[in-house]
């Protein structure tokens, strides 16, 4: 490719993006025992996509991860979160009462464990989807008046 002075950037970005994604999942699942959680992990996933868009261009990114998908991801995230709440309602508990999810006796905590993990996955979807959607909306904006027309 002629005059490809972005070669180093491309190679490094290709190496880094998988690592960033893995780190996002580390933050997600390590959030249980240390600092971190789904908000941070969602932003990190979005960062990986934004880095891809910066290096390889917006059209390539939108081909890989289409805008309808990021929008749907954000919506599904909210649905997962609220859905766990309704699941608890249907199992006879109060809204978002994790203890009631599997109808366990008071001593056991599988419901607490599962509930928080599912909810965090919902938050991960919602945050990464919303972040990417916002980025697409800002980056994909075309100026309505060209600079020369002012």
């Amino acid at each position, binding site marked *: 490719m002629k005059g490809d002075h972005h070669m180093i950037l491309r190679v490094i970005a290709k190496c880094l993006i998988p690592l960033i994604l893995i780190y996002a999942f580390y933050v997600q699942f390590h959030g249980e025992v240390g600092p971190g959680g789904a908000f941070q992990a969602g932003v990190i996933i979005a960062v990986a996509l934004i880095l891809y868009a910066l290096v390889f261009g917006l059209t390539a990114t939108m081909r890989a991860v289409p805008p309808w998908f990021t*929008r*749907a991801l*954000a*919506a*599904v995230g*909210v*649905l997962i979160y*609220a*859905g766990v*709440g*309704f699941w608890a*309602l249907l199992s006879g*508990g*109060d*809204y*978002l*009462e*994790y*203890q*009631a999810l599997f109808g366990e006796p008071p001593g056991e905590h599988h419901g607490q464990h599962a509930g928080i993990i599912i909810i965090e996955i919902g938050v991960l979807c919602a945050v990464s989807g919303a972040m990417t959607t916002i980025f697409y909306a800002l980056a994909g904006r075309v100026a309505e008046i060209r600079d020369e027309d002012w």
Partner: protein
Amino acid sequence: MILETLLVSAPDWAIRHSTVLIPIVPLIVAPVLAMSPSARLAWVASIAATAASLYFALLTLAIVQSSTGGVISYHVGNWPPPIGIEFRVDALNAMILLIVTGMGFLASIFAWPSVIAEISRPKIGLFLCAFLLCFAGLCGVASTGDAFNLFVFLEISSLSTYVLVAMGAGRDRRALPAAFDYLIMGTLGASFYIIGVGFLYAATGTLNMADIAAQLPALAGNRSVQVGFAFIIVGLGLKAAMWPLHQWLPNAYAYSPSFVTMFLAATATKVALYALIRWLFTIFQPDFAFEQALFTWVLAPLGIAAMVICSFQAVFQTDVRRMLAYSSVAQVGYMILGVSLGTAIGVSSGLLHLFNHALMKGALFMAVAGICLNVQGTTIRDFAGLGRTAPFTMTAFAIAGLSLIGVPLTAGFISKLQLGYALFEHGWWWAVLLVVFSSFLAVFYIGRVLQAVFFQAPANPSKHRKEAPLLLLVPLWVLALANIYFGIDASFPAGLARDGAVAALGLEAFR
């Protein structure tokens, strides 16, 4: 009575979870709408969601009225209150919830003809999703008993409101700066609120409203409590469009899609005002010395300034929607004035006006929305002669307009009468004169429109009728007839307002 049959026929799960289901049902339907492929399907789903909320709000009201303590407390996640989030509904919350869900239901019915005309079709699903989020946020503010949770719901409703206002850009580009102004001012208001909550948290160590209220008497004179109080009042005042903080409102109402204007005018400032009352009376008890001074020297002058100055501004507007928007600020002034008396009868007159104002502004903006469908532009000149081409729409507009003025046999008269009683009892006869004067100004600004509508020849006479579609006329006439019905038999809203004031002030019930 209807409420009792509702209570008897309701299943157990609905009675147990009704408080939390009011905001949660629209909240879970909203993301589905965002993915909905069909605009019509999205509209039907939004009606179903608001109808469900209305049902649960009525049920909640029935439970509150029939229970002895008059308070429903729901523990989200089954965590007991000072630690977990509590949904706490008493007579005041139940009244606000009824207004929000009722107006939301009527708004979502008439959404179809109005939205299809003003919003591009692929965006309708997302638009209605934002509407349901706003609706859910407002319901959440009105039902939660947790100071921080209130902030979260306030932001849910505000952020979606900014989007809704900006959607008016398809019709008028000035919607964009209006939405941006609202964004800045609304965010300032929300930040002030959360800063205030932070100060209170530092002083009391709790976020539960009832718990804060229980701890405050021991902290009398604490500087951080006073600072927190000031921040909260200013923040909520911004959201409620209290007089000098109302600059975002006229443009936001004038340029947003007409459906949004109607919904916001009937609910958004009301909910912020509810939060203000909740903080002023339930959390900070009025016997705080600085609060007494605040009522007399800050809130009352601001309320009076709003109702006089903004009524004057309304008289000089040429655009009907801007005129109604200024009138909204003036009406908020009446409510603030009622609240600023700090007595049970004052608060109840403020609440009664809040209820009636939702009815009349809802009807007025809905009629304007119907006119927007057929007439380009909403200046008073565009309204000329519409009394002949759109008689049903304009008659409803006239009824609601008369109610706004406060003509006898309409709801507006009852609430102004109540406010007058409250002011007289307090010895503020001069304020009564100002209320009458400001109503007199309302005669002018409503009269200008009515004169154009019924007594001027149409600007461009044409044979075809410009009546609004049936989907709009039905909710419009429901509101217009409610204005007359509650003007003749005000026992239902007056009872709600009285119980609400009693609940806010924490007095013994005097039903």
